[in-house]
């Protein structure tokens, strides 16, 4: 212990501690994959976390102690764990060889299972970000795309690209990996510290919790800073560049969606315009045998009114009835916001009533139909099929955004709910017309 002094020893220790940051990677996987936990989610999630912490702490620290006790040295082309397994079982002859092999093979199998976390969680993070418009919305369409085929392929291709770039060097990869993990760790823990401090009174958070959270943040930030500064030239820069590019991409996607949102807002002036218009009157009751236009709407807004007027002018005097269909989407977010199912239905019905009033003003017999579901396409198709039985001479109308210069990017960024509905309806033998909503 002589020669380098306490400071030198502390520095070596700190360096090894932070470069071993790879050990803590994966703890975050449980919190990200909560959606696939069985109910009660929180209890199951916490229990998983506890098992994970205990098993990881014992295994990781146990391995470190064993490396020391067996006095093994790294061998070319072998992992330290396989050398350790040989050293531990070495005394048992042939049986020992088999035991060592079984140990390492099961480690390999466990790692293969672990890679699955990437496939489970990455699409879910992408879906969460897509909901907030940071990613193409189609990534949020988990149900539509079924197992998120595109996301999985994209992730797999990126994983292989990283493999090729690093030539399969585990040291380089672990550095990149822990930088990213500790970036989210630090941000999450900082956020939680802030949250705890802000809510310590109303949530009665004990000081101890805040202290542990703060220690966690300091540790994570320390490991992040040390790893980046120590390994910046050995892959550290690359992971920062890749993550930086992804952030820029997210910002660009968000900007695009916001631009489209602003353009669509202009249509809302139509609402005020039709409100001022005098009605023709003469709307009677709906006649089941008459020509019926079924329009899919969502909320009373410019887009819906625009489509309605479009149908009127495209098929003058053709339809007698207008049926407006709207779907309320149930999710846990809704319950958390304090909105109940009856309230959601009431919202949907209120906007439907406005459409019905509008159609009557234009001389059509009109009704509204609301539905509720967890998936908009499923619920809409279901409602439309039932309506078609009720009104055999009906046509379903839905709207889809059209851009003046439709690029490859537009096709990625704008999902085609209308076309998904259309495909299913056409299979049922129901005519569905998709009306354009031009975005300038």
């Amino acid at each position, binding site marked *: 212990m002589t020669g380098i002094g306490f400071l030198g020893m502390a520095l070596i220790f700190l360096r090894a501690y932070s470069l071993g940051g790879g050990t803590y990677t994966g703890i975050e996987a449980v919190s*990200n994959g909560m959606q696939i936990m069985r109910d009660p989610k929180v209890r199951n999630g916490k229990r998983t976390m*506890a098992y994970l912490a205990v098993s990881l702490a014992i295994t990781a620290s146990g391995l470190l102690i064993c490396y020391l006790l067996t006095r093994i040295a790294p061998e070319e082309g072998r992992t330290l764990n396989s050398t350790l397994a040989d050293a531990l079982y070495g005394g048992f002859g042939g049986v020992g060889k088999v035991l060592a092999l079984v140990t390492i093979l099961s480690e390999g199998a466990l790692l293969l299972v672990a890679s699955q976390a990437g496939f489970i969680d990455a699409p879910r993070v992408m879906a969460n970000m897509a909901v907030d418009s940071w990613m193409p919305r189609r990534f949020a369409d988990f149900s539509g795309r079924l197992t998120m085929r595109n996301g999985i392929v994209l992730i797999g291709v990126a994983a292989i690209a990283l493999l090729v770039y690093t030539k399969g060097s585990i040291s380089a990869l672990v550095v990149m990996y822990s930088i990213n993990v500790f970036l989210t760790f630090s941000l999450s823990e900082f956020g939680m510290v802030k949250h705890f401090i802000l809510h310590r009174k109303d949530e009665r958070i004990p000081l101890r919790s805040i202290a542990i959270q703060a220690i966690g943040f300091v540790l994570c930030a320390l490991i992040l800073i040390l790893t980046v500064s120590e390994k910046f030239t050995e892959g550290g820069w690359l992971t920062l560049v890749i993550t930086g590019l992804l952030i820029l991409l997210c910002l660009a996607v968000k900007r695009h969606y916001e631009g489209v949102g602003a353009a669509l807002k202009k249509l809302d002036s139509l609402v005020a315009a039709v409100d001022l218009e005098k009605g023709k009157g003469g709307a009677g009751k709906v006649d089941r045998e008459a020509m019926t236009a079924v329009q899919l709407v969502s909320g009373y807004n410019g887009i819906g009114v625009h489509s309605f007027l479009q149908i009127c002018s495209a098929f003058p005097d053709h339809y007698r009835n207008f049926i407006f269909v709207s779907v309320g989407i149930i999710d846990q977010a809704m319950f958390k916001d304090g909105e109940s199912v009856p309230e959601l239905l009431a919202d949907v019905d209120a906007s439907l009533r406005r459409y019905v009033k509008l159609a009557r003003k234009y001389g059509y017999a009109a009704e509204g139909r609301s539905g509720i579901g967890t998936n908009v396409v499923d619920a809409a198709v279901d409602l439309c099929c039932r309506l078609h039985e009720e009104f055999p001479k009906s046509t379903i109308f839905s709207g889809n955004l059209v851009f003046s210069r439709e690029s490859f990017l537009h096709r990625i960024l704008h999902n085609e709910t209308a076309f998904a509905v259309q495909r*299913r309806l056409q299979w049922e033998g129901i005519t569905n017309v998709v009306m354009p909503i031009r975005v300038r």
Partner: protein
Amino acid sequence: MSGEWEGDGASFIERLRLKVFGPPRDVRDPGIFHKIALIPFFAWVGLGADGLSSSAYGPEEAFRNLGTHTYLAVFLGLATALTVFIIAYTYTKIIERFPLGGGGYVVATKTLSKGAGVVSGSALIVDYILTITVSIVSSTDAIFSYLPIAWEPGKIWVTAVLILLMVVLNIRGVKESITILAPSSSSSSRPTPYSSSTASRAGRESRERSSITSERASIPI
């Protein structure tokens, strides 16, 4: 709908595609989410393994960086165990506050700012891509430890093939991919009713026009 894939007229490529990726799912099947959502045991294996498996490469990196000062491994072991418990504790709190998942992205968005959220989310996506590469590279490293050193150049190819295999398994559906890798013991257990908020929220979001200006769509605390 699936009939069109099974017809005699299907080309070789189509039949191969069917074999490898499985038949297209009937999107109208109401039980579809039961099949895609994971039975909790498998979820636990899949997600828990990610944390535990890092002991295959984490401690090794730390130990190698001690150089000749291996005696420090005692302290390193203690510090490692302590750090694991601290991080796990803080993430347990995150689970309590954000039970719908989303992890780092949601936490940063909700507690800090949207900008912090996008940084955290992007880092997470790259994190998970690296989870795949690191785990599979480490897995082949372990296996190749017992193969002749002359075979070393083949390692990267084996790794690439394994990643491709995982992609294929995942395209077949998340559930199957863990059932193949984990011992199947709970096939009789009741499937979890699918209650993911992502899917349902996604459903709402996918209606482009309703949500384009909606802020309500963001994830709740």
